[in-house]
């Protein structure tokens, strides 16, 4: 059906029919929460919907509800996600399998309601699994898979599903919406290991730790995240068998004999793929890696996928302020992965699309031409570059 990306996420939520949704509207996520509210009003779901007074309260209520042992979902963007920051850590640390749609948007100041990834990248160390979506279809598919991933007994971790604000969130595209029953069968039922509502077996959630246990608890938490990649891949394959669209850690395009590679997240992958296709016709050995999973970061898998490549360009839709040369977070992770593996590829970073700035095919063409030069000369002239910036 023809759906906006935000409505695709709301459709997935309708089919999941979670026990509790607590949410607060924020542009460009509003379409998700208001569509879902209408489903509640029309009886299409029998979810308990809590229209809270802020995003911090949204995540607070989600934590209380998830600790009480049911399926919990929410959605946010930008400053709303930033307002949740404290609670993001608590949700992950309490091992609560909450699923959240994030419609990516720039963070203030200056106030800007359009897309970049500064919001979810700011939350990258909170302990959540992060899945990025190129299209409305992927946002829909990822949301359904997220429920399974979050609730996997080895993980019990919250999952964020990203899509690009307005670009995907408000663009109408054809989305294949699966049969309700098939979705419900795929996600199955959830039986919590512990619940606040199990009054016959009372347990304490959120105790406080001194130096004698905190460290071990954090180790357990990071161990759980390290198990996530296998679960994500397994669920992605099972999803493929059921619904015909298989998902992995990243989506390689024209990578088999590639000497040059571009790494990018979300909707810009579409533009990049078109450019790569055209350049391939001209004989340039270039490929594209669309990264789907950013947390946990697939370091080893990326190193393997890039092993025959001479030069790599990483496109970042956010800046890690104060990082090396003001680079973006994806670039830093890719550099770290390649360096730790002793790899010899040249790597270059491009910051693009901040605050909703358009990404034109010619920008990607420039990246490709830089990559060719880097591969030929073995030299990276400028480590961090900007696409579409007036200077």
């Amino acid at each position: 059906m023809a759906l906006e990306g935000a409505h695709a996420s709301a459709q997935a939520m309708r089919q999941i029919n979670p026990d509790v949704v607590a949410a607060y509207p924020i542009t460009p996520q509003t379409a998700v929460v208001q569509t879902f509210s209408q489903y509640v009003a029309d009886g299409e779901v029998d979810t308990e919907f809590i229209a809270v007074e802020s995003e911090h309260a949204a995540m607070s209520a989600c934590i209380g509800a998830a600790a009480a042992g049911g399926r919990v979902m929410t959605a946010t963007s930008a400053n709303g996600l930033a307002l949740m920051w404290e609670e993001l850590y608590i949700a992950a640390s309490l091992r609560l399998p909450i699923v959240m749609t994030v419609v990516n948007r720039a963070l203030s100041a200056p106030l800007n309601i359009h897309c970049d990834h500064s919001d979810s990248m700011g939350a990258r160390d909170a302990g959540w699994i992060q899945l990025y979506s190129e299209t409305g279809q992927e946002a829909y598919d990822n949301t359904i898979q997220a429920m399974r991933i979050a609730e996997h007994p080895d993980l019990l971790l919250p999952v964020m599903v990203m899509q690009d604000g307005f670009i995907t969130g408000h663009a109408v595209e054809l989305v294949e919406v699966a049969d309700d029953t098939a979705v419900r069968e795929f996600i199955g039922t959830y039986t919590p290991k512990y619940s606040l509502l199990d009054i016959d077996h009372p347990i304490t959630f959120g105790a406080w730790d001194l130096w004698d246990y905190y460290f071990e608890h954090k180790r357990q938490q990071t161990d759980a995240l390290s198990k996530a990649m296998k679960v994500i891949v397994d669920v992605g394959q099972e999803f493929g068998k059921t619904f015909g669209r298989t998902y992995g850690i990243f989506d390689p395009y024209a990578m088999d004999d590639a000497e040059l590679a571009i790494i990018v997240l979300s909707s810009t992958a579409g533009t990049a793929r078109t450019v790569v296709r055209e350049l391939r016709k001209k004989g340039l050995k270039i490929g594209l890696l669309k990264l789907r999973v950013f947390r946990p970061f697939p370091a080893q898998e990326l190193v393997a996928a890039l092993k025959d490549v001479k030069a790599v360009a990483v496109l970042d839709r956010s800046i890690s302020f104060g990082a090396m040369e003001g680079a973006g977070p994806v670039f830093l992770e890719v550099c770290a992965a390649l360096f730790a593996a002793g790899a010899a590829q040249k790597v270059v970073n491009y910051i693009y699309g901040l605050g909703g700035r358009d990404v034109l095919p010619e920008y990607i063409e420039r990246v490709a031409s830089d990559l060719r030069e880097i591969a030929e000369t073995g030299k990276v002239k400028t480590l961090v570059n900007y696409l579409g910036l007036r200077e």
Partner: protein
Amino acid sequence: MVIKLKEQAAKPERLAPGHRFCAGCAEPIIIRQILNAIDEPVVVGAATGCTEIATSMYPYTAWNVPWIHNAFENVSTTIAGAEAMYRVLVRRGKIPERNIRFIAIGGDGATYDIGLQWLSGALERGHRFIYICLNNEAYMNTGIQRSSATPMGAHTTTSPAGTVIPGKMQWRKPLTEIITAHRIPYVAQAAPSHWRDLMEKARKAAAADGPSFINVFSDCNRGWRHGTETAIEVTRLAVETCYWPLFEVENGVWKLNYKPREKKPVEEWLKTQGRFQHLFQPQFKHVIAEIQARVDEEWEGLLKKCEA
């Protein structure tokens, strides 16, 4: 239903011995009185603060009931989330109806200050939960800093009494009235010195079909600077001086629960505590008169509200 001490004493403890509250603290007394009064099964949430720190140090817990701590400001929303989950799971037939009562506990910092927005939101949405404010009139857990519940003239570490400034300059926030303005089914002010009154209020709060709120005066000998054995006496004096009146607002109807036979001067309560000691110096004596004037004014206002 009449509360009989003998019957209450025979009930199992929901807050177990072995907690780490300071000697002479009023908080465990209040929590035990309240949990004892409520017959239904409970799920308890606590804000960050003394109660949380004293009862949940991993790997131990003092709670014989399901309990959750999330953060400082959001206990009301956390427990509201649990309450919402309970309602939907019962509605969907996933768990049996067990008549569970949801209780949120916060200190005055978590209630009057940082958590007021979350509390107000949860009250407006009408979640069925009981909010208990353990009001010890400062941020005691972080070492006695002023809150908006701290009385005028009190010495705290962020409203210290000096040679020029006589402790906290502002009057306390009228929180119970602010909560009453939300028009929830049940609001009360209580004190552990008047235990039967407090326990009856806990029962009414548990029976309320919607949110309920009890602001409980909670003596802190560390912060108030007095001996560890006088919490209840000092509390009783606060009630006898009308500094802390006991009243309730049930479905909008105000009721005074206790009228002292003889209204004692507030000075008698002030002099029991080291935090007001400086007020008895000649240059600060006028503050005592100001406090008395505000107490009188509030008391008269309360009497009028309760007459109607």
